[in-house]
C-alpha cells in the first residue's frame, strides 16, 4: 500500500486525531494528537490490511521556537509482510510533557521510550520501568533539548564530583609530590579561556 493511502485510511478512521499529513522525498508523516495514540497505533498494528508490525524507530524531536507545540514523538512503522511503511508524529506540548507508552504493543518500545525520556524529558505513561538509560541517574537536564547547551553548561556531573572528593579523601600519601588536584584549574584550561 502506498504511504499516502495509509495516511488517508488513518484520516478516515481517526478524523479528529489527524492534524496534518506531510510528504517529503516520498516518505509520509502523519501528524496526530497524542490523546488516542495507543489506540491508533494498536489499530495500525492489528489491522490486517495495514499490519504495521515492526516499530523501526521511536524518537522525540524538540521544536523549540519553531512550532507551536514544542515536542513531537516520532514512530517509524514498517510492515514486514506487506512491505510498506508510515511515520506517525504525535505532538506533545511542553506544559503537558507526557504521552502514553506503546510497550503494550511492541516490547521493543521499552528502551526507545526510556531513551526518549532520558534525552528529551518526555514522560511515557504506563511504562514499566521509566528510568534514565544512557545518562547516569543523577544527571540534571535533558541534553537533546534545544535549550540545553552543547558543553553541558560548564558544570560537572554530581557523580563525578563525588568521585573526585572520594579520591582526595582516600589519598594517603604522595610519594613524589607530583599529585595535582584535579578540581583546581590547570594551565591548559586557563589558556583555552
Amino acid at each position, binding site marked *: 500500500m502506498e504511504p499516502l493511502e495509509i495516511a488517508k485510511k488513518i484520516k478516515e478512521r481517526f478524523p479528529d486525531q489527524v492534524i496534518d499529513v*506531510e510528504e*517529503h*522525498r516520498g*516518505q509520509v*508523516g502523519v501528524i496526530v494528537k497524542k490523546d488516542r495514540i495507543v489506540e491508533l497505533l494498536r489499530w495500525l498494528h492489528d489491522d490486517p490490511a495495514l499490519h504495521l*508490525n*515492526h*516499530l*523501526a*524507530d521511536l*524518537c522525540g*524531536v*524538540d521544536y523549540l521556537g*519553531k512550532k507551536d507545540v514544542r515536542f513531537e514523538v*516520532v514512530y*517509524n512503522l*514498517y510492515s*514486514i509482510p506487506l*512491505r510498506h511503511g508510515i*511515520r506517525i508524529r504525535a505532538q506533545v506540548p511542553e506544559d503537558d510533557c507526557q504521552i502514553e507508552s506503546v510497550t503494550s504493543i*511492541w*516490547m*521493543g*518500545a*521499552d*528502551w*526507545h521510550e526510556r*531513551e526518549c525520556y532520558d*534525552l528529551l524529558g518526555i514522560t511515557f505513561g504506563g511504562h514499566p520501568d521509566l528510568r*534514565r*538509560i*544512557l*545518562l*547516569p541517574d543523577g544527571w540534571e537536564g535533558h*541534553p*537533546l533539548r534545544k535549550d*540545553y547547551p*552543547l558543553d553541558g553548561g560548564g558544570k560537572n556531573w554530581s557523580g563525578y564530583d563525588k568521585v573526585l572528593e572520594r579520591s582526595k579523601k582516600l589519598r594517603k600519601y604522595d610519594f613524589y609530590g607530583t599529585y595535582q588536584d584535579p578540581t583546581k584549574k590547570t594551565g591548559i584550561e586557563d589558556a583555552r579561556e
Partner: protein
Amino acid sequence: MLENKAQLRLVKGDEATHEPYTIAMGPQHPATHGVLKLDLELDGETVLECKPTVGFLHRGVEKLAENLSYAQTLPLTDRLDYIASMANNVAYSIAVEKLLDIEVPLRAKYIRTMVMEMARLTGHLLWLATHALDIGAMTVFLYCFREREILLDMFEEICGARLTTSYTCIGGVRQDVTGHFLESLYDFTEDFPSKIKEYETLIDKNRIWLKRTQDVGIVSAEDAVSLGLTGPTLRGSGVDYDVRKHMPYDAYPYVKFEVPIGSKGDVYDRYRCRMEEMHQSNSIIRQCIEALPTGPIRAADAPDLVMPYGIQKKVAADATFSSGIIKLVKDSERYIEGDVYVAAEVPKGELGFYFVSDGKGVPYRMHIRSPSYIHIGALSFLCKGQMVADVIAIIGSVDVVLGECDR
C-alpha cells in the same frame, strides 16, 4: 527447562528463606563485548532476572550532529559500530542523500555495496571469533582474525585507515578503488569459502557446540518482531526481513543474493544464519567486482567540506561550519525543510538514521536507530530462566557492539 521454572516458583513463594544471589556481570568482563553491565539475579546457576545497564560509552553523537554539518558528522559514524565502520558510513551517506535528494553515480554505488559487504564480513568474522571464544573454542578466534586482517589491510589500501574508515562521502565515495585492490579482493573471495569451511569443521558439527547452542535463548517469530530485533538475530527466528531486499539501496537491486532464514530462533539458528550470510556476502563482492562500471565516483552537486588551504589563520580544533573556517561547497537549494528515515542493513541489523532538516546545512535533529541498542534491550527477555553460561552464549548470538548501542 521445566526444572528451572519450578525453581522460579519456589523463590517467588518463599522469599524469606531463599534469597537470590545477585551478581554484576560487567562493565569490565571478558564476555560482555565492551562496557555492558548485566545485573544478574541468580538461583544457583539459573538466571531469574537479567537487567542490562548501558550508557558507559555515551558520547552524545546525536547532540554533536546537531552542531556539525552533514559532511562533518560522517567520521562520527565510524565510532558507532567500530568493528564494521564502512557499513555505518554507507548507512549514513544514503540517509543524507535521501534527505538532500542526491543521485549517486553507478560506480560509486557498486563500490559502496562492495565495501559494505566487506564490512559485513569483518563484522561477522569478529562476531564468530568472539562468540566461539565465549563458548570456549579458542582456536576459531585466531582463524577468524587471520581473514579479518586481510580485509582490514584492504580497507587501509583504499582509505588509509583500518578501523575508522570514513571512506564514503555524501554523494559517492572519497577515493576510487585501484586495480590492485580489486585483484587482491577477488583473490580473497576465491579463497574465502574454503576458510569458512575451516571454521565450520571446528565447531559446526561439534557435539559440545551443538549442546551449548541448540535450544538455548529461543525467541519466537512474533516475539522477535515485537522486540524489534533485526538482522540475522531476527532472521534466525524465521522472519524474512532484510533491509537490502525490502528497501534496496546502492547496488543491491542489481546483485543476486539470498537471505538465509532460520527456523527455531535459538542460538544455533542465529549462528547458521550468519555463517550463510558470509557466503552470500562473498558472492555479492564477486558480483560487484565483475560488474563494476566505469564513470565518476561522486555526484557533482553533493555538499562537501573544503578547507581553505590558502589562509594563514591557524585552524582551531573546534572549528565548525558555523564559525566560517570550514566551508561547504554547493550550499544550495537542496537544504529544505522535511524529515526522512532511512535504514541500511549493517552486520548487526537495521541501522536507521532519522533526520529532521530545517533548511540549513546542519541537521536539526538526527536520531540513530542502532540495532545493538535494541538487541541489548531484548537481553532481559532472552536470558530469563537460562543458565549463566547461556547468558554468555546469548550475548554472543545477538551480536552487540557497545559503541553503537551507547552512541
